[in-house]
């Protein structure tokens, strides 16, 4: 065991870009072992952490060090030999910094696997080469499709048990690829690996001369990341972006619009978290009358001078200033936490969504969504739930349940595999229609990841019940268009 590979001593060196990834796949397919191998082979494990895993392996009677124990850190996990909840680990290579989420495969803990995948730019899906694609593999691929995880890397694992033969790998790779592509998952890379022995994890294996693709690490190092897009945007940049350009008036309509427009000049989204009005609590007298709206840019780049629509009220104004504790900015890119001041005295509260007048976010009282149901009790029509969307929480009722995804159907798309169903049970993915007590600027998740995502919350005990991704209605289609088969 040696040192970490990060050796830059600059306080904030031109950072290698950040990639968040998660593992997926069925129980015992080798996710934690792969993660442990990745950490080990990139020299990201410090000596005392390695020794403690060595000790724990020995006390469990293992002859070799069980690298899965690096992430399986809970007492119950070590007793049962499975992962129960997500473990987050951090490592870097000279090319990139990684935040990794090692997720459980057991169907009972699907809610935790979805937790880990929801923030991932890339998903590493493990498949046991002996068994190929099983139900839980399909469930996790469906989750990846639901969440629109941008990159999927399929690691066909335990090839040591099949003598490193090419045939089984190629069969499985073909099958996973066609399944994933049918689900609309772009960019699927398949890698033959032995997580246990390290083949093609971080180091190219000499036992698979027939394989010419990347190692798992190379695939992760080269996948484009989302965060790197730009929290940046401090300082420079042009002034007035959207002033005067006439966009659609974004009133509160019925249902999401399937916006057909191209992304020529993509708009921006800014959910308001807090109204900052310090008054007596101002840090200096000149800020007593300050009034700004705090939040994190969800999408696009906000610029001073941009014309703004406030949702759900529909009021309009312009961005007068963008503030941070470190000074004003002319523009702020996606991911950046700032405060904006508005030119006019319009009514804006926590939970509102500011968006550019160009490509504005419409507000709706009813919308369709894919929902991954994560609670023990079923979801039924007319159930009352809370929708948490950005900082907004509104009451909602289930207007209809249009269908349930049939995991067992191979090769289907998220829509074509939907069968009729009137309730969602634990771990079901279904299409539902929600009716809201107040309008919300919920958008099509496929085009607007941040403003299309929401969670359902139990109004009584506050439990998180479901992950939801809103979907645009295909123009003119009735809701049963989704229910085939």
């Amino acid at each position: 065991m040696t040192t970490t590979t990060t050796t830059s001593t600059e306080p904030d060196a031109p950072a290698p870009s950040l990639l968040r990834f998660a593992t997926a796949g069925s129980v015992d397919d080798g996710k934690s072992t792969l993660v442990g191998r990745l950490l080990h082979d990139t020299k990201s494990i410090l000596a005392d952490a390695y020794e403690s895993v060595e000790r724990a392996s020995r006390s469990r009677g293992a002859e070799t060090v069980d690298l899965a124990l690096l992430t399986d850190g809970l007492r119950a996990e070590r007793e049962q030999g499975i992962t129960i909840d997500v473990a987050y680990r951090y490592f870097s290579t000279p090319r990139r910094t990684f935040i990794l989420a090692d997720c459980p495969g057991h169907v009972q803990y699907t809610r935790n696997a979805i937790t880990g995948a929801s923030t991932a730019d890339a998903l590493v899906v493990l498949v046991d080469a002996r068994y190929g694609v099983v139900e839980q593999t399909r469930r996790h691929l469906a989750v990846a499709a639901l969440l629109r995880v941008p990159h999927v890397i399929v690691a066909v694992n335990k090839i040591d048990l099949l003598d490193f033969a090419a045939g089984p790998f190629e069969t499985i790779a073909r099958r996973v690829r066609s399944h994933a592509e049918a689900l609309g998952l772009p960019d699927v890379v398949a890698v033959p690996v032995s997580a246990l022995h390290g083949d093609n994890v971080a180091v190219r294996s000499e036992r698979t001369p027939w394989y010419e693709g990347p190692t798992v690490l190379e695939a992760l190092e080269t996948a484009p990341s989302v965060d790197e897009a730009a929290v940046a945007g401090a300082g420079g940049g042009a002034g007035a972006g959207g002033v005067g350009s006439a966009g659609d008036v974004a009133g509160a309509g019925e249902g999401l619009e399937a916006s057909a427009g191209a992304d020529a000049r993509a708009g921006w989204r800014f959910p308001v978290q807090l109204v900052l009005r310090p008054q007596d609590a101002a840090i200096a007298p000149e800020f007593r009358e300050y009034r700004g709206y705090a939040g994190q840019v969800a999408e696009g780049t906000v610029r001073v001078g941009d014309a703004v629509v406030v949702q759900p009220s529909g009021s309009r104004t312009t961005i007068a200033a963008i503030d941070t504790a470190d000074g004003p900015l002319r523009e702020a890119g996606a991911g950046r936490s700032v405060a904006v001041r508005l030119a006019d005295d319009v009514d804006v509260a926590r939970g509102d969504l500011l968006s550019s007048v160009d490509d504005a976010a419409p507000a709706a009282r009813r919308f369709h969504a894919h929902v991954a149901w994560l609670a023990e009790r079923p979801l039924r029509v007319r159930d009352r739930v809370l929708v948490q969307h950005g900082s907004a929480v509104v009451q909602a009722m289930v207007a209809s349940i249009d269908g349930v995804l049939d995991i067992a159907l191979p090769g289907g798309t998220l829509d074509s595999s939907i069968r009729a169903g009137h309730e969602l049970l634990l771990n079901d993915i279904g299409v539902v229609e929600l009716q809201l007590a107040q309008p919300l600027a919920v958008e099509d998740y496929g085009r607007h990841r941040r403003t299309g995502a929401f969670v359902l919350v139990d109004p009584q005990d506050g439990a998180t019940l479901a992950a939801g991704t809103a979907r645009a209605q295909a123009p003119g289609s009735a809701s049963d268009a989704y229910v085939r088969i």
Partner: protein
Amino acid sequence: MTHHSPARASTLDVLESEGIHIIREAAGGARRPVLLFSGGKDSVVVLHLAAKAFWPGRVPFNLLHVDTGYNFDEVLDFRDRTVARLGLRLTVARVQDYIDDGRLRERPDGTRNPLQTIPLLDAIAGHGYDVVFGGARRDEEKARAKERVVSLRDEFGQWDPRQQRPELWNLYNARHLPGQHVRVFPLSNWTELDVWRYIARERIELPSLYFAHEREVLRRDGMWLAPHHSVRARAGEAAVARRVRYRTVGDASCTGAVESDAATLEQIIAEVASTRLTERGATRADDRLSEAAMEDRKKVGYF
């Protein structure tokens, strides 16, 4: 303004914005939030982020410190100076009070670190705090690696690692029933190195014992402990002068110093980048008690 403006967001930019977002989100939905502040580097960074989150207003909630009675004087001075500089209010819950009136008893091993849990829970319940910000990071320890950013605690302050709520995207659900509360960890995704790089970038002031200095120390269980009324030399132990610094700052009875010449932030960053030992492994006696020491403490309400 010298605040850097890279073409691409650096990891620190991403982490800073994420931390500010978490603080605003949890505070926005809270009735009575509080920030756990010890004067240690992680809580100093959380406070720094909170100051940015609410700028140009002061941080709109109180600070809370659980003092074991064995804390380092220079850290307590630093704590009080920082609180005064920012115009904030600090509540101190004292383990000593609990020992004096018999509600807690000293442990045979002399460490008071695990004794903090009851005063912490009493302070949370007594003041009605519903959202409790802390500086814990997932990279510190394997049980912490499993915890949500917003972590529900029951009426007894217990963390149930088998029943954590799903936490999707950056939508944090802090709802809870009366009597329960949530712990919120804005630095969840920060590593020790990120913390030091950020402190250097932001020129954040820290207690002096984080920097290399001469100190009388004695060797115990492979760690350098500073003699203190809680740490008296035992037979065969002798205090010696060494050049040391602290990587974590907790209670003097269980926090060890490391031998180091790193006296500046740049030197500390270089040292942390090339260290072979984890932060807690090198300096915390309380984590060595058993394989699941941290998990067990957390289950009964520890930070």
